[in-house]
């Protein structure tokens, strides 16, 4: 029987009511009295020397309050990078400055040069056209390999080259890995591109700066996944505002997918300008602008080699990846191709030797950073594609080849520095074969053939590391921040609770699922628990939501705080019932003394906490409010298996997804409905990457796919109903809820399934030369592949 409340129940989402009735409160819905509007003047060239900015004409236009340029930000900090990678040789990465407004040079189309602030947005935009910019165009750096050649133009003149870092992992294994390849029975090699994506949360970014001259407090309203992180980065590194004078509010946020983790120039600008002008300054991004300003994702060029013995056991993996950083280092960019990618190269398999080399490169393109999955989709894609290719080369069934190499004993320490706590990869694979009806494939194949269509089946596994992570470990790896999470649980006198979490919900449904957990622990109705998030003024310092960490880390903090509440409440109950706290039990919202029929209700205890007439004041303080910070001691490792069936139109190359199935192991599940939804969304993004999406630049560094006219977003008719299952559950061993995280799995597991399926379809149709097609598998690319 599915549960109807508490942990494990598909409770309906309470946030839905406001969203369904048009009462959500997104940042753009906020208008402050007296607000002015900002319009950014951006570089239209990819690379150029900025010789001058003349604002005189613009300044004279109607409604213009002030025009800001790079000169206004001299002496003010640049946008900081939150992760420092140390390279193969022990050197720290090259880290260029990242000015709020361009200084001396522009480095990508979209780089901000000046900002007009005016009484209305239209006036600001009219005046923005009157800003005269003197740019001497320079040859753009676009191709990563060319960028590293001697004599290539430099994106940053003050760096020695366009190489950010050359990372080797695990460097000590390098020789042993090379040796293993020399003696291997079989080596499969695959070169591939994990293309650049544009995140495209449906809500474009917005920032509103506000300043109170009376208190000298600054407030920033912003579309962020992590308001505390923005407060820390912007306050401490950019504007020099101490945190107690700076409040950051991220109200309802319309999706993030990583792109709203980072601290952006527009946030710093609006906060800065509001203080200068002593009035609120609002910036609303248009979609066109978001294409050239939101951090992009992926953009790896990889060569992967897999060494196998005669039976198909994996002996070693060697990869060489070029990772595009774009023009500047976005907030967490350096971590993505390294620690979020290299550490996952073992996948679900026992491979004794692994060596990952990553060269991160600056180019004259929009900065690249974490996008749903961040590094893990890139690792999974190359691994699961090369395994498929190896299976074909060696004549081994791809499912069997995977099984043969599965890790089956846990905990398992991989050769790439992580330890998987639990998992059962055979179980998820078995479940997948069942729910995907793999045994029925042949008859569906015959049916497709009868209609003149090719059909293919792609299966793959994935593992990811979520719940990022132990602060001490990430600190060693280069993170410049801790990665704990926080919660304050405030119990009110009449028994209701407010949970203030450092996590942030922008679609994940925290307001519902977090309440389920707390209500379950106490045994009260979920509606007695309110979840507050998104405002640094009323939540404890937390690191926000990304990397599928909310429940595993934020939820754990909330559990710890609630445990403290319960412990204290038991003491109060014990006092009220004249019993020993050790004998008090809490069940269904009532405290009882074990072995007796004495009982007090939850509400009696909470009232006593705030009206402490009859209260153990000498032992405990009045009130019932606790805070906990939770710092996990490991990542969590969700894993699973995905299957995709495609049809290919042999005449046009058009691929349609006919069936898609996912069997995931997320450990324990709090709200199955929400988990399904997270997987569905991830799968659609993965299908989007596999078939539709791709950011392409031309030779001048202009973004060709700069709007929905050319950047193909998955739509309702691009995808089928998905079959998803999460009944295989090996609970996480090191967090109190036993949860692993489910937000990214779909986007990680699905691209290789789709590409494996298309290659399978072509192979079955006799196109035996087609071993790989680079994403997105557009009709024209698939058709070209079939032409040989």
């Amino acid at each position, binding site marked *: 029987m*599915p549960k109807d409340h508490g942990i494990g129940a598909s409770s*309906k*989402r309470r*946030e*839905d*009511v*406001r*969203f*369904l*009735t*048009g*009462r*959500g*409160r*997104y940042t*753009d*819905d906020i*208008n402050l009295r007296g607000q002015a509007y900002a319009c950014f003047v951006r570089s239209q060239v990819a690379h150029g020397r900025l010789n001058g900015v003349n604002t005189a004409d613009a300044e004279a236009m109607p409604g213009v309050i002030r025009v800001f340029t790079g000169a206004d930000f001299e002496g003010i900090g640049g946008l900081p990078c939150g992760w420092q990678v140390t390279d193969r040789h022990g050197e720290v990465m090259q880290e260029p400055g990242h000015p709020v407004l361009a200084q001396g040079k522009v480095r990508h189309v979209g780089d901000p040069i000046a900002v007009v602030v005016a009484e209305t947005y*239209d006036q600001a935009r009219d005046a923005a056209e009157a800003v005269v910019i003197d740019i001497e165009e320079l040859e753009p750096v676009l191709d990563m390999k060319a960028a590293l050649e001697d004599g290539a133009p430099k994106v940053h003149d003050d760096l020695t080259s366009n190489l950010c870092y050359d990372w080797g992992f695990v460097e000590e294994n390098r020789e042993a890995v090379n040796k293993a390849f020399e003696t291997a029975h079989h080596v499969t090699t695959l070169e591939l591109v994990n293309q650049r994506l544009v995140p*495209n*949360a*449906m*809500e*474009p970014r917005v920032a509103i700066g506000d300043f109170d001259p009376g208190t000298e407090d600054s407030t920033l309203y912003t579309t962020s996944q992590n308001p505390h992180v923005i407060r820390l980065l912007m306050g401490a590194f950019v504007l020099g505002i101490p945190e107690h004078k700076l409040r950051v509010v991220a109200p*309802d*946020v*319309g*999706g993030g*997918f990583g792109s709203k983790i980072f601290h952006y120039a527009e946030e710093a600008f609006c906060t800065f300008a509001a203080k200068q002008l002593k009035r609120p300054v609002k910036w609303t991004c*248009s*979609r*066109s602008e978001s294409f050239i300003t939101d951090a992009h994702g992926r953009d790896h060029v990889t060569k992967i080699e897999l060494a196998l013995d005669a039976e198909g056991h994996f002996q070693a993996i060697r990869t060489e990846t070029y990772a595009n950083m774009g023009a500047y280092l976005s907030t967490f960019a350096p971590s993505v191709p390294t620690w979020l990618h290299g550490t996952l190269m073992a996948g679900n398999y026992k491979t004794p030797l692994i060596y990952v080399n990553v060269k991160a490169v600056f180019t004259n393109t929009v900065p690249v950073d974490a996008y749903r999955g961040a590094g893990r989709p890139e690792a999974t894609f190359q691994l699961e594609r090369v395994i498929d290719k190896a299976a074909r080369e060696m004549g081994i069934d791809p499912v069997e080849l995977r099984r043969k190499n599965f890790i089956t004993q846990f905990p398992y320490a991989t050769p790439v520095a992580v330890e998987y706590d639990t998992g059962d990869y055979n179980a998820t694979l078995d479940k997948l074969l069942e*729910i995907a009806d793999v045994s029925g494939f042949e008859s569906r194949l015959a049916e497709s053939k009868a209609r003149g269509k090719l059909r293919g089946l792609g299966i793959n596994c994935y593992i990811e590391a979520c719940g990022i992570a132990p602060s001490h470990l990430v600190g060693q790896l280069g993170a410049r921040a801790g990665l704990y999470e926080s919660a304050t649980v405030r119990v009110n006198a009449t028994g209701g609770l407010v949970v203030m979490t450092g996590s942030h919900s922008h*679609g*994940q*449904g925290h307001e519902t699922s977090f309440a389920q957990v707390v209500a379950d622990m106490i045994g009260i109705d979920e509606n007695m628990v309110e979840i507050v998030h998104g405002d640094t003024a009323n939540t404890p310092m937390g690191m926000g939501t990304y990397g599928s960490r909310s429940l595993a880390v934020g939820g754990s903090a909330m559990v710890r705080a609630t445990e403290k509440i319960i412990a204290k409440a038991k003491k109060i109950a014990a006092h009220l019932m004249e019993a020993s706290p050790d004998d008090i039990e809490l069940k269904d919202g009532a405290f009882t003394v074990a072995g007796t029929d004495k009982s007090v209700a939850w509400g009696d205890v909470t009232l006593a906490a705030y009206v402490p007439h009859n209260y153990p004041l000498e032992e405990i303080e009045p009130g019932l409010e606790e805070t906990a910070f939770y710092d996990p001691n490991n990542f969590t490792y969700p894993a699973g298996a995905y299957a995709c069936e495609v049809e290919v139109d042999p005449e046009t190359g058009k691929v349609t997804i006919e069936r898609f199935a996912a069997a995931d192991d997320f450990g324990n599940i709090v709200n*199955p*409905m*929400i988990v*399904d*939804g997270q997987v*569905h*969304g991830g*799968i*659609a*993004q993965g299908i989007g990457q596999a078939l539709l999406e791709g950011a392409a630049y031309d030779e001048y560094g202009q973004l060709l796919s700069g*709007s*929905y*006219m050319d950047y193909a*977003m*998955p*739509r*309702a*008719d691009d*995808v089928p*109903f*998905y*079959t*998803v299952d999460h009944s295989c559950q090996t609970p996480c061993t090191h967090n109190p809820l036993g949860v692993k995280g489910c937000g990214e799995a*779909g986007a990680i597991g699905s691209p290789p399934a789709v590409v494996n399926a298309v290659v399978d379809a072509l192979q079955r149709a006799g196109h035996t030369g087609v071993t790989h097609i680079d994403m997105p598998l557009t009709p024209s690319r698939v058709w070209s592949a079939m032409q040989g």
Partner: protein
Amino acid sequence: MTKVTMTVNGKPVSGEVEGRTLLSQFLREGLGMTGTHIGCDTSQCGACVVHVNGQDVKSCTMFALECEGAEVRTIEGMANADGSLSTIQQAFQDHHGLQCGFCTPGMVMTAAALLEKNPKPSEAEIRDYLEGNICRCTGYHNIVKAIMAASGQDVGAIAAE
């Protein structure tokens, strides 16, 4: 500035607008009805869909002055008279047809227009009708399911809960 008068969710409203004021701007900025969202500037995402004289249109691609005298219906006017969720809204909640909620107003307005014309659409008809509504969160599964459920169809057999 020109005065424009229309009926929004049954109430007569008017305001001063420029020629270039879009219906979406008039609703959001002029009337403070921020349920209608703006997700793009190329008329493709559908976050802004409202009904004008009973037809689903993109309010970001229509001028306020084109709505002189029109009956406009927005997401704020979709709930039942007693404030409870309408059948479509309720189905979206029941079947988890929304996550971040940003595309949701447009999805609900589009779904309502579809069901008016086609009370029992097939899965394929629903997916086709949603061509102009982009959702980045849900993968559409639960949106399609919610619309089928709202039209009284049994969705129990659709894969996954």
